[in-house]
Protein backbone atom coordinates (compact mmCIF):
# COMPACT_ATOMS: atom_id res chain seq x y z
CA UNK A 1 0.00 0.00 0.00
CA UNK A 2 1.46 3.31 -1.06
CA UNK A 3 -0.03 5.71 1.42
CA UNK A 4 -2.95 5.52 3.76
CA UNK A 5 -5.90 7.64 2.60
CA UNK A 6 -7.35 9.51 5.54
CA UNK A 7 -10.38 11.70 5.93
CA UNK A 8 -9.23 15.09 7.16
CA UNK A 9 -11.03 17.13 9.79
CA UNK A 10 -12.27 19.32 6.95
CA UNK A 11 -13.77 16.31 5.13
CA UNK A 12 -15.54 15.20 8.29
CA UNK A 13 -16.88 18.69 8.92
CA UNK A 14 -18.19 18.85 5.39
CA UNK A 15 -20.00 15.53 5.95
CA UNK A 16 -21.40 16.81 9.26
CA UNK A 17 -22.68 19.97 7.58
CA UNK A 18 -24.35 17.98 4.81
CA UNK A 19 -25.89 15.55 7.31
CA UNK A 20 -28.17 18.42 8.34
CA UNK A 21 -30.02 17.91 5.07
CA UNK A 22 -30.52 14.21 5.70
CA UNK A 23 -34.31 14.27 5.44
CA UNK A 24 -34.50 16.61 2.43
CA UNK A 25 -35.70 14.05 -0.08
CA UNK A 26 -37.51 11.80 2.40
CA UNK A 27 -39.59 9.35 0.38
CA UNK A 28 -41.95 6.48 1.05
CA UNK A 29 -39.71 3.91 -0.59
CA UNK A 30 -36.30 4.17 1.06
CA UNK A 31 -36.90 7.19 3.32
CA UNK A 32 -33.64 9.03 4.12
CA UNK A 33 -31.50 7.15 1.58
CA UNK A 34 -30.71 9.99 -0.84
CA UNK A 35 -29.97 12.36 2.03
CA UNK A 36 -27.62 9.77 3.51
CA UNK A 37 -25.73 9.41 0.23
CA UNK A 38 -25.67 13.20 -0.14
CA UNK A 39 -24.03 13.55 3.27
CA UNK A 40 -21.37 10.95 2.51
CA UNK A 41 -20.40 12.24 -0.95
CA UNK A 42 -17.41 14.37 0.24
CA UNK A 43 -15.96 11.27 1.91
CA UNK A 44 -16.66 9.02 -1.09
CA UNK A 45 -14.94 11.51 -3.41
CA UNK A 46 -11.88 11.55 -1.17
CA UNK A 47 -11.65 7.81 -0.56
CA UNK A 48 -12.41 6.41 -4.01
CA UNK A 49 -10.95 7.68 -7.24
CA UNK A 50 -12.05 5.22 -9.93
CA UNK A 51 -15.51 5.41 -11.46
CA UNK A 52 -16.25 1.78 -10.52
CA UNK A 53 -15.38 2.28 -6.85
CA UNK A 54 -17.38 5.48 -6.62
CA UNK A 55 -20.37 3.91 -8.31
CA UNK A 56 -20.26 0.95 -5.93
CA UNK A 57 -19.97 3.24 -2.90
CA UNK A 58 -22.88 5.43 -4.02
CA UNK A 59 -25.02 2.35 -4.64
CA UNK A 60 -24.42 0.86 -1.21
CA UNK A 61 -25.30 4.17 0.44
CA UNK A 62 -28.57 4.54 -1.44
CA UNK A 63 -30.06 1.62 0.48
CA UNK A 64 -32.97 2.08 2.88
CA UNK A 65 -32.14 4.25 5.85
CA UNK A 66 -34.32 5.93 8.47
CA UNK A 67 -33.63 7.17 11.96
CA UNK A 68 -33.95 10.30 14.05
CA UNK A 69 -32.11 12.97 12.01
CA UNK A 70 -29.62 13.96 14.75
CA UNK A 71 -28.65 10.52 15.99
CA UNK A 72 -27.75 9.65 12.40
CA UNK A 73 -24.47 11.44 13.16
CA UNK A 74 -22.81 8.73 15.28
CA UNK A 75 -23.86 6.21 12.60
CA UNK A 76 -22.27 8.41 9.93
CA UNK A 77 -19.13 8.56 12.05
CA UNK A 78 -18.87 4.79 12.25
CA UNK A 79 -19.60 4.45 8.53
CA UNK A 80 -16.81 6.92 7.74
CA UNK A 81 -14.40 4.84 9.79
CA UNK A 82 -15.47 1.64 8.01
CA UNK A 83 -15.29 3.21 4.55
CA UNK A 84 -11.85 4.58 5.33
CA UNK A 85 -10.57 1.12 6.32
CA UNK A 86 -12.15 -0.39 3.24
CA UNK A 87 -10.56 2.18 0.95
CA UNK A 88 -7.24 1.29 2.54
CA UNK A 89 -7.67 -2.35 1.63
CA UNK A 90 -9.37 -3.90 4.65
CA UNK A 91 -11.84 -6.66 3.85
CA UNK A 92 -15.10 -4.98 4.78
CA UNK A 93 -17.94 -6.01 2.51
CA UNK A 94 -21.19 -4.22 1.69
CA UNK A 95 -23.15 -6.41 4.06
CA UNK A 96 -20.96 -5.39 6.99
CA UNK A 97 -21.50 -1.68 6.33
CA UNK A 98 -25.21 -2.12 5.77
CA UNK A 99 -25.39 -4.24 8.92
CA UNK A 100 -23.86 -1.48 11.02
CA UNK A 101 -26.28 1.09 9.59
CA UNK A 102 -29.37 -1.03 10.13
CA UNK A 103 -28.18 -2.29 13.49
CA UNK A 104 -27.63 1.19 14.87
CA UNK A 105 -30.56 3.14 13.42
CA UNK A 106 -33.30 1.44 15.45
CA UNK A 107 -31.83 1.69 18.96
CA UNK A 108 -30.52 5.20 18.33
CA UNK A 109 -33.89 6.46 17.08
CA UNK A 110 -35.21 5.17 20.38
CA UNK A 111 -32.90 7.64 22.10
CA UNK A 112 -33.27 10.58 19.72
CA UNK A 113 -37.05 10.77 19.89
CA UNK A 114 -37.44 11.03 23.68
CA UNK A 115 -34.39 13.24 24.16
CA UNK A 116 -34.97 15.76 21.36
CA UNK A 117 -38.65 15.67 20.38
CA UNK A 118 -40.23 14.83 23.75
CA UNK A 119 -37.92 16.58 26.20
CA UNK A 120 -35.64 19.23 24.76
CA UNK A 121 -38.06 20.78 22.26
CA UNK A 122 -41.04 20.99 24.64
CA UNK A 123 -38.79 22.52 27.33
CA UNK A 124 -37.05 25.09 25.13
CA UNK A 125 -40.28 25.74 23.22
CA UNK A 126 -42.26 26.35 26.40
CA UNK A 127 -39.51 28.57 27.79
CA UNK A 128 -39.45 30.63 24.61
CA UNK A 129 -43.22 30.68 24.23
CA UNK A 130 -43.84 31.83 27.80
CA UNK A 131 -41.59 34.83 27.14
CA UNK A 132 -43.07 35.39 23.67
CA UNK A 133 -46.66 35.48 24.95
CA UNK A 134 -45.95 38.93 26.37
CA UNK A 135 -44.29 40.01 23.11
CA UNK A 136 -40.72 39.59 24.37
CA UNK A 137 -38.35 38.97 21.45
CA UNK A 138 -35.99 37.10 23.78
CA UNK A 139 -38.45 34.20 23.56
CA UNK A 140 -37.83 33.28 19.92
CA UNK A 141 -34.14 34.22 20.11
CA UNK A 142 -33.51 32.06 23.18
CA UNK A 143 -35.31 29.10 21.59
CA UNK A 144 -33.51 29.37 18.26
CA UNK A 145 -29.99 29.95 19.62
CA UNK A 146 -30.09 27.35 22.40
CA UNK A 147 -31.65 24.71 20.17
CA UNK A 148 -29.11 25.12 17.40
CA UNK A 149 -26.12 25.31 19.75
CA UNK A 150 -27.13 22.05 21.38
CA UNK A 151 -28.02 20.38 18.09
CA UNK A 152 -24.87 21.38 16.20
CA UNK A 153 -22.53 20.38 18.99
CA UNK A 154 -24.40 17.09 19.30
CA UNK A 155 -24.09 16.40 15.57
CA UNK A 156 -20.39 17.20 15.41
CA UNK A 157 -19.21 15.52 18.60
CA UNK A 158 -21.22 12.32 18.17
CA UNK A 159 -20.02 12.00 14.57
CA UNK A 160 -16.43 12.40 15.76
CA UNK A 161 -17.10 9.91 18.54
CA UNK A 162 -18.46 7.39 16.06
CA UNK A 163 -15.53 7.97 13.69
CA UNK A 164 -12.95 7.42 16.42
CA UNK A 165 -14.69 4.51 18.09
CA UNK A 166 -15.37 2.81 14.77
CA UNK A 167 -17.37 -0.35 14.78
CA UNK A 168 -16.58 -0.90 18.48
CA UNK A 169 -19.41 1.52 19.26
CA UNK A 170 -22.05 -0.98 18.18
CA UNK A 171 -21.25 -3.26 21.08
CA UNK A 172 -21.75 -0.42 23.53
CA UNK A 173 -25.05 0.77 22.12
CA UNK A 174 -27.26 -0.63 24.82
CA UNK A 175 -24.63 0.28 27.39
CA UNK A 176 -25.06 2.28 30.56
CA UNK A 177 -24.53 5.87 29.45
CA UNK A 178 -27.12 5.87 26.69
CA UNK A 179 -29.63 4.23 28.98
CA UNK A 180 -28.98 6.88 31.62
CA UNK A 181 -29.45 9.69 29.12
CA UNK A 182 -32.74 8.27 27.89
CA UNK A 183 -34.04 7.67 31.39
CA UNK A 184 -32.90 11.08 32.63
CA UNK A 185 -34.60 12.70 29.65
CA UNK A 186 -37.88 10.95 30.28
CA UNK A 187 -37.82 11.91 33.98
CA UNK A 188 -37.19 15.55 33.13
CA UNK A 189 -39.65 15.38 30.26
CA UNK A 190 -42.49 13.97 32.36
CA UNK A 191 -41.81 16.54 35.09
CA UNK A 192 -41.88 19.47 32.67
CA UNK A 193 -44.93 18.14 30.80
CA UNK A 194 -46.86 18.07 34.07
CA UNK A 195 -45.84 21.70 34.61
CA UNK A 196 -47.03 22.59 31.11
CA UNK A 197 -50.34 20.79 31.59
CA UNK A 198 -50.92 22.65 34.86
CA UNK A 199 -49.94 26.07 33.54
CA UNK A 200 -51.08 26.13 29.93
CA UNK A 201 -54.08 23.91 29.38
CA UNK A 202 -56.65 26.55 30.15
CA UNK A 203 -60.21 25.61 31.00
CA UNK A 204 -62.32 28.22 32.76
CA UNK A 205 -65.95 27.67 33.67
CA UNK A 206 -68.03 30.83 33.97
CA UNK A 207 -70.98 29.04 35.59
CA UNK A 208 -72.26 30.76 38.75
CA UNK A 209 -73.32 28.50 41.59
CA UNK A 210 -75.88 29.74 44.15
CA UNK A 211 -74.23 32.43 46.27
CA UNK A 212 -73.14 31.45 49.75
CA UNK A 213 -74.44 33.31 52.80
CA UNK A 214 -71.46 34.46 54.83
CA UNK A 215 -71.16 33.96 58.56
CA UNK A 216 -71.45 36.89 60.97
CA UNK A 217 -68.09 38.67 61.08
CA UNK A 218 -66.98 37.59 57.61
CA UNK A 219 -68.59 40.64 56.02
CA UNK A 220 -68.62 44.29 56.89
CA UNK A 221 -71.65 45.51 58.83
CA UNK A 222 -72.46 48.87 57.31
CA UNK A 223 -74.31 51.27 59.62
CA UNK A 224 -77.59 52.68 58.34
CA UNK A 225 -77.02 56.26 59.48
CA UNK A 226 -74.27 58.75 58.83
CA UNK A 227 -70.69 57.52 59.11
CA UNK A 228 -68.26 59.21 61.45
CA UNK A 229 -64.54 59.40 60.81
CA UNK A 230 -63.85 56.68 63.38
CA UNK A 231 -66.43 54.34 61.87
CA UNK A 232 -65.06 54.93 58.38
CA UNK A 233 -61.58 54.09 59.60
CA UNK A 234 -62.93 50.85 61.07
CA UNK A 235 -64.74 49.93 57.84
CA UNK A 236 -61.66 50.58 55.70
CA UNK A 237 -59.57 48.52 58.10
CA UNK A 238 -62.06 45.66 57.89
CA UNK A 239 -62.01 45.75 54.11
CA UNK A 240 -58.23 45.76 54.08
CA UNK A 241 -58.26 42.66 56.28
CA UNK A 242 -60.20 40.88 53.56
CA UNK A 243 -63.78 41.02 54.80
CA UNK A 244 -66.53 40.89 52.23
CA UNK A 245 -68.54 43.97 51.25
CA UNK A 246 -71.81 42.04 50.99
CA UNK A 247 -73.54 39.38 53.02
CA UNK A 248 -73.59 36.97 50.09
CA UNK A 249 -70.33 35.70 48.61
CA UNK A 250 -70.33 34.98 44.88
CA UNK A 251 -69.66 31.32 44.30
CA UNK A 252 -68.31 30.14 40.96
CA UNK A 253 -67.77 26.61 39.81
CA UNK A 254 -64.23 27.55 38.80
CA UNK A 255 -63.33 28.81 42.29
CA UNK A 256 -64.56 25.55 43.78
CA UNK A 257 -62.47 23.53 41.33
CA UNK A 258 -59.41 25.69 41.94
CA UNK A 259 -59.67 25.09 45.66
CA UNK A 260 -59.00 21.39 44.99
CA UNK A 261 -55.90 22.07 42.86
CA UNK A 262 -55.58 24.63 40.08
CA UNK A 263 -55.43 23.04 36.65
CA UNK A 264 -57.42 19.94 37.57
CA UNK A 265 -59.75 20.13 34.56
CA UNK A 266 -56.76 20.59 32.23
CA UNK A 267 -55.23 17.45 33.70
CA UNK A 268 -58.43 15.49 33.18
CA UNK A 269 -58.67 16.72 29.59
CA UNK A 270 -55.06 15.63 28.98
CA UNK A 271 -55.76 12.18 30.41
CA UNK A 272 -58.87 11.94 28.26
CA UNK A 273 -56.83 12.87 25.16
CA UNK A 274 -54.22 10.22 26.08
CA UNK A 275 -56.94 7.63 26.40
CA UNK A 276 -58.44 8.61 23.02
CA UNK A 277 -54.98 8.38 21.41
CA UNK A 278 -54.63 4.86 22.77
CA UNK A 279 -58.02 4.11 21.20
CA UNK A 280 -56.43 5.18 17.88
CA UNK A 281 -58.42 8.41 17.58
CA UNK A 282 -56.48 10.77 15.29
CA UNK A 283 -55.01 13.88 16.97
CA UNK A 284 -56.44 15.91 14.10
CA UNK A 285 -59.97 14.75 14.88
CA UNK A 286 -59.37 15.66 18.52
CA UNK A 287 -58.04 19.12 17.73
CA UNK A 288 -61.03 19.95 15.57
CA UNK A 289 -63.39 18.35 18.08
CA UNK A 290 -62.00 20.48 20.91
CA UNK A 291 -62.49 23.68 18.92
CA UNK A 292 -66.11 22.74 18.21
CA UNK A 293 -66.60 21.82 21.88
CA UNK A 294 -65.10 25.17 22.97
CA UNK A 295 -67.38 27.12 20.64
CA UNK A 296 -70.44 25.18 21.85
CA UNK A 297 -69.60 25.65 25.53
CA UNK A 298 -69.01 29.36 24.99
CA UNK A 299 -72.29 29.74 23.10
CA UNK A 300 -74.08 28.02 26.01
CA UNK A 301 -72.34 30.35 28.51
CA UNK A 302 -70.69 27.49 30.35
CA UNK A 303 -67.09 28.50 29.54
Amino acid at each position, binding site marked *: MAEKIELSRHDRMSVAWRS*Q*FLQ*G*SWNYERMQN*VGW*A*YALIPAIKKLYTTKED*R*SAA*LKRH*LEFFNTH*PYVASPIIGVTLALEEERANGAAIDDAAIQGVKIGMMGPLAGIG*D*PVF*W*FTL*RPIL*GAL*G*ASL*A*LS*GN*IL*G*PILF*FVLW*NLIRMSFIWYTQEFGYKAGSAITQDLSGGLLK*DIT*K*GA*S*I*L*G*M*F*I*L*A*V*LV*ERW*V*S*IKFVVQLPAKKLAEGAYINFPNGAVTGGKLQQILGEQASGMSLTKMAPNTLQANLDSL*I*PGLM*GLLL*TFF*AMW*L*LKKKVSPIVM*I*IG*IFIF*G*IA*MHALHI*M
Partner: protein
Amino acid sequence: MSIISMVLVVIIAFFAGMEGILDEFEIHQPLVSATLIGMATGHLTAGIMLGGSLQMIALGWANIGAAVAPDVALASVASAIIMVKGNNFTPTGISVAVASAIPLAVAGLFLTMIVRTVSVGLTHGADAAAKEGKYQTIERLHLVGILLQGLRIAIPAALLIAIPASAVQEALGAMPEWLTGGMAIGGGMVVAVGYALVINMMATREVWPFFAIGFALAAVSQLTLIALGAIGVALAFIYLNLSKMGGNGGGGSNGGGAGDPVGDILDQY
Protein backbone atom coordinates in the same frame (compact mmCIF):
# COMPACT_ATOMS: atom_id res chain seq x y z
CA MET B 1 -48.85 44.54 2.74
CA SER B 2 -46.15 46.09 0.57
CA ILE B 3 -44.56 44.19 -2.31
CA ILE B 4 -41.31 43.80 -0.35
CA SER B 5 -43.18 42.37 2.63
CA MET B 6 -45.02 39.92 0.37
CA VAL B 7 -41.80 38.68 -1.20
CA LEU B 8 -40.16 38.35 2.21
CA VAL B 9 -43.11 36.39 3.59
CA VAL B 10 -43.01 33.96 0.65
CA ILE B 11 -39.26 33.50 1.19
CA ILE B 12 -39.81 32.84 4.90
CA ALA B 13 -42.56 30.37 3.97
CA PHE B 14 -40.12 28.65 1.61
CA PHE B 15 -37.54 28.22 4.37
CA ALA B 16 -40.22 27.05 6.78
CA GLY B 17 -41.27 24.43 4.23
CA MET B 18 -37.71 23.12 3.83
CA GLU B 19 -37.29 23.02 7.59
CA GLY B 20 -40.61 21.28 7.97
CA ILE B 21 -38.95 18.17 6.59
CA LEU B 22 -35.34 18.72 7.65
CA ASP B 23 -36.27 19.46 11.28
CA GLU B 24 -32.80 20.83 12.03
CA PHE B 25 -32.68 24.61 12.47
CA GLU B 26 -36.34 24.70 13.61
CA ILE B 27 -37.19 27.76 11.51
CA HIS B 28 -40.59 26.18 10.89
CA GLN B 29 -41.51 26.25 14.57
CA PRO B 30 -44.16 28.91 15.26
CA LEU B 31 -41.86 30.86 17.60
CA VAL B 32 -39.35 31.45 14.82
CA SER B 33 -41.42 31.64 11.63
CA ALA B 34 -44.26 33.76 13.05
CA THR B 35 -41.70 36.16 14.54
CA LEU B 36 -39.95 36.44 11.17
CA ILE B 37 -43.23 37.08 9.34
CA GLY B 38 -44.15 39.65 11.97
CA MET B 39 -40.81 41.34 11.38
CA ALA B 40 -41.21 41.29 7.59
CA THR B 41 -44.65 42.88 7.75
CA GLY B 42 -43.92 45.45 10.44
CA HIS B 43 -45.91 43.74 13.20
CA LEU B 44 -43.03 42.28 15.17
CA THR B 45 -44.63 42.22 18.62
CA ALA B 46 -47.87 40.68 17.37
CA GLY B 47 -45.85 38.11 15.43
CA ILE B 48 -43.93 37.13 18.56
CA MET B 49 -47.15 36.81 20.57
CA LEU B 50 -48.78 34.71 17.85
CA GLY B 51 -45.67 32.54 17.70
CA GLY B 52 -45.79 32.05 21.46
CA SER B 53 -49.43 31.00 21.57
CA LEU B 54 -49.17 28.67 18.57
CA GLN B 55 -45.93 27.20 19.95
CA MET B 56 -47.75 26.25 23.14
CA ILE B 57 -50.33 24.38 21.07
CA ALA B 58 -47.77 22.72 18.81
CA LEU B 59 -45.22 21.74 21.49
CA GLY B 60 -45.97 18.06 21.23
CA TRP B 61 -46.82 17.88 17.55
CA ALA B 62 -44.55 15.24 16.12
CA ASN B 63 -45.27 12.52 13.62
CA ILE B 64 -44.25 9.47 15.57
CA GLY B 65 -45.81 6.14 14.76
CA ALA B 66 -49.36 6.16 13.53
CA ALA B 67 -50.39 9.48 15.11
CA VAL B 68 -50.20 12.32 12.60
CA ALA B 69 -50.37 15.93 13.79
CA PRO B 70 -51.21 18.98 11.65
CA ASP B 71 -48.39 20.50 9.63
CA VAL B 72 -46.52 22.90 11.95
CA ALA B 73 -44.85 24.87 9.16
CA LEU B 74 -48.11 25.61 7.37
CA ALA B 75 -49.93 26.36 10.65
CA SER B 76 -47.30 28.97 11.60
CA VAL B 77 -47.09 30.62 8.20
CA ALA B 78 -50.83 30.62 7.49
CA SER B 79 -51.83 31.92 10.92
CA ALA B 80 -49.28 34.75 10.71
CA ILE B 81 -50.52 35.76 7.25
CA ILE B 82 -54.17 35.62 8.37
CA MET B 83 -53.36 37.78 11.40
CA VAL B 84 -51.57 40.40 9.33
CA LYS B 85 -54.30 40.45 6.68
CA GLY B 86 -57.06 40.53 9.26
CA ASN B 87 -55.34 43.57 10.79
CA ASN B 88 -56.47 42.53 14.29
CA PHE B 89 -53.55 42.25 16.69
CA THR B 90 -55.50 41.86 19.93
CA PRO B 91 -55.31 38.54 21.85
CA THR B 92 -58.69 37.57 20.34
CA GLY B 93 -57.46 38.43 16.85
CA ILE B 94 -54.40 36.24 17.44
CA SER B 95 -56.40 33.26 18.72
CA VAL B 96 -58.85 33.50 15.82
CA ALA B 97 -55.93 33.57 13.36
CA VAL B 98 -54.48 30.45 15.02
CA ALA B 99 -57.81 28.62 15.05
CA SER B 100 -58.57 29.37 11.40
CA ALA B 101 -55.07 28.30 10.30
CA ILE B 102 -55.39 24.83 11.84
CA PRO B 103 -57.80 23.40 9.22
CA LEU B 104 -55.34 24.64 6.57
CA ALA B 105 -52.50 22.93 8.41
CA VAL B 106 -54.49 19.69 8.33
CA ALA B 107 -55.08 20.07 4.60
CA GLY B 108 -51.34 20.70 4.26
CA LEU B 109 -50.66 17.09 5.27
CA PHE B 110 -51.94 16.10 1.85
CA LEU B 111 -49.25 18.22 0.20
CA THR B 112 -46.63 16.50 2.37
CA MET B 113 -47.83 13.13 1.12
CA ILE B 114 -47.59 14.28 -2.49
CA VAL B 115 -44.02 15.54 -2.10
CA ARG B 116 -42.93 12.39 -0.28
CA THR B 117 -44.38 10.29 -3.09
CA VAL B 118 -42.76 12.39 -5.81
CA SER B 119 -39.45 11.94 -3.98
CA VAL B 120 -39.65 8.21 -4.68
CA GLY B 121 -38.93 9.22 -8.28
CA LEU B 122 -35.87 11.15 -7.09
CA THR B 123 -34.58 7.99 -5.44
CA HIS B 124 -34.79 6.09 -8.71
CA GLY B 125 -33.03 8.94 -10.47
CA ALA B 126 -30.30 8.69 -7.85
CA ASP B 127 -30.00 4.93 -8.46
CA ALA B 128 -29.38 5.55 -12.16
CA ALA B 129 -26.81 8.25 -11.40
CA ALA B 130 -25.03 5.95 -8.93
CA LYS B 131 -24.55 3.37 -11.66
CA GLU B 132 -22.58 5.95 -13.63
CA GLY B 133 -20.80 7.24 -10.51
CA LYS B 134 -22.26 10.69 -11.10
CA TYR B 135 -22.37 12.17 -7.65
CA GLN B 136 -23.24 15.68 -8.88
CA THR B 137 -26.53 14.32 -10.22
CA ILE B 138 -27.34 12.78 -6.85
CA GLU B 139 -26.55 16.07 -5.15
CA ARG B 140 -28.80 17.92 -7.57
CA LEU B 141 -31.66 15.43 -7.12
CA HIS B 142 -31.41 15.81 -3.37
CA LEU B 143 -31.57 19.58 -3.66
CA VAL B 144 -34.64 19.25 -5.89
CA GLY B 145 -36.27 17.25 -3.10
CA ILE B 146 -35.53 20.04 -0.61
CA LEU B 147 -36.81 22.71 -3.03
CA LEU B 148 -40.08 20.78 -3.48
CA GLN B 149 -40.52 20.77 0.30
CA GLY B 150 -39.99 24.54 0.33
CA LEU B 151 -42.57 25.07 -2.40
CA ARG B 152 -45.01 22.92 -0.42
CA ILE B 153 -45.39 25.86 2.00
CA ALA B 154 -44.37 28.79 -0.23
CA ILE B 155 -47.16 28.21 -2.78
CA PRO B 156 -50.03 28.06 -0.25
CA ALA B 157 -48.52 31.13 1.43
CA ALA B 158 -48.47 33.03 -1.86
CA LEU B 159 -52.10 32.04 -2.50
CA LEU B 160 -53.12 33.29 0.94
CA ILE B 161 -51.28 36.55 0.33
CA ALA B 162 -53.10 36.94 -3.00
CA ILE B 163 -56.48 37.01 -1.26
CA PRO B 164 -57.36 40.70 -0.84
CA ALA B 165 -57.00 41.95 2.73
CA SER B 166 -60.51 43.39 2.65
CA ALA B 167 -61.97 39.94 1.96
CA VAL B 168 -60.06 38.42 4.90
CA GLN B 169 -61.12 41.26 7.18
CA GLU B 170 -64.72 40.95 6.08
CA ALA B 171 -64.74 37.21 6.72
CA LEU B 172 -63.11 37.61 10.12
CA GLY B 173 -65.33 40.60 10.93
CA ALA B 174 -68.46 38.65 10.06
CA MET B 175 -67.71 36.13 12.83
CA PRO B 176 -70.02 36.66 15.79
CA GLU B 177 -68.63 36.89 19.34
CA TRP B 178 -69.78 33.40 20.31
CA LEU B 179 -67.63 32.03 17.49
CA THR B 180 -64.45 34.07 18.05
CA GLY B 181 -64.73 33.75 21.83
CA GLY B 182 -65.33 30.03 21.47
CA MET B 183 -62.30 29.67 19.21
CA ALA B 184 -60.13 31.35 21.86
CA ILE B 185 -61.51 28.95 24.49
CA GLY B 186 -60.89 25.99 22.19
CA GLY B 187 -57.34 27.24 21.63
CA GLY B 188 -56.77 27.17 25.39
CA MET B 189 -57.85 23.55 25.59
CA VAL B 190 -56.38 22.17 22.37
CA VAL B 191 -52.90 22.44 23.90
CA ALA B 192 -53.73 19.25 25.80
CA VAL B 193 -53.63 17.12 22.63
CA GLY B 194 -49.96 17.89 21.97
CA TYR B 195 -49.01 17.15 25.56
CA ALA B 196 -51.03 13.92 25.49
CA LEU B 197 -49.14 12.78 22.38
CA VAL B 198 -45.78 13.25 24.09
CA ILE B 199 -46.83 11.87 27.48
CA ASN B 200 -48.13 8.72 25.81
CA MET B 201 -44.73 8.19 24.20
CA MET B 202 -42.72 8.63 27.40
CA ALA B 203 -44.93 7.43 30.21
CA THR B 204 -43.78 4.35 32.07
CA ARG B 205 -44.63 3.27 35.56
CA GLU B 206 -41.19 4.39 36.60
CA VAL B 207 -41.52 8.04 35.57
CA TRP B 208 -45.16 8.76 36.54
CA PRO B 209 -44.23 9.96 40.06
CA PHE B 210 -42.20 12.76 38.47
CA PHE B 211 -45.32 13.83 36.59
CA ALA B 212 -47.19 14.06 39.88
CA ILE B 213 -44.43 16.14 41.50
CA GLY B 214 -44.30 18.45 38.51
CA PHE B 215 -48.05 19.00 38.49
CA ALA B 216 -48.18 19.80 42.20
CA LEU B 217 -45.20 22.18 42.06
CA ALA B 218 -46.52 23.99 38.99
CA ALA B 219 -49.51 25.16 41.04
CA VAL B 220 -47.06 27.31 43.05
CA SER B 221 -47.17 30.31 40.75
CA GLN B 222 -44.04 31.93 42.25
CA LEU B 223 -41.89 29.21 40.71
CA THR B 224 -40.77 30.31 37.23
CA LEU B 225 -40.30 27.88 34.37
CA ILE B 226 -36.52 28.08 34.82
CA ALA B 227 -36.82 27.29 38.53
CA LEU B 228 -39.03 24.32 37.74
CA GLY B 229 -36.58 23.19 35.05
CA ALA B 230 -33.78 23.27 37.63
CA ILE B 231 -35.85 21.15 40.02
CA GLY B 232 -36.57 18.69 37.21
CA VAL B 233 -32.90 18.35 36.24
CA ALA B 234 -31.93 17.90 39.89
CA LEU B 235 -34.58 15.21 40.38
CA ALA B 236 -33.36 13.32 37.31
CA PHE B 237 -29.75 13.35 38.56
CA ILE B 238 -30.73 12.34 42.08
CA TYR B 239 -32.81 9.47 40.76
CA LEU B 240 -30.11 8.19 38.40
CA ASN B 241 -27.44 8.36 41.09
CA LEU B 242 -29.57 6.76 43.75
CA SER B 243 -30.50 3.89 41.47
CA LYS B 244 -26.79 3.27 40.82
CA MET B 245 -25.97 3.28 44.51
CA GLY B 246 -28.56 0.61 45.01
CA GLY B 247 -26.73 -1.42 42.37
CA ASN B 248 -23.35 -1.08 44.08
CA GLY B 249 -24.70 -1.89 47.52
CA GLY B 250 -26.11 -5.15 46.26
CA GLY B 251 -29.01 -6.94 47.87
CA GLY B 252 -31.11 -3.81 47.67
CA SER B 253 -31.33 -3.25 51.42
CA ASN B 254 -31.74 0.50 50.86
CA GLY B 255 -33.33 0.27 47.47
CA GLY B 256 -36.58 -1.22 48.63
CA GLY B 257 -38.16 -4.53 47.77
CA ALA B 258 -38.86 -6.09 44.43
CA GLY B 259 -41.44 -4.43 42.26
CA ASP B 260 -40.32 -0.84 42.86
CA PRO B 261 -38.44 1.07 40.16
CA VAL B 262 -35.11 1.02 41.96
CA GLY B 263 -35.37 -2.74 42.20
CA ASP B 264 -36.03 -2.96 38.48
CA ILE B 265 -32.90 -0.98 37.67
CA LEU B 266 -30.93 -3.09 40.10
CA ASP B 267 -31.76 -6.11 38.04
CA GLN B 268 -30.43 -4.47 34.93
CA TYR B 269 -27.01 -3.60 36.33
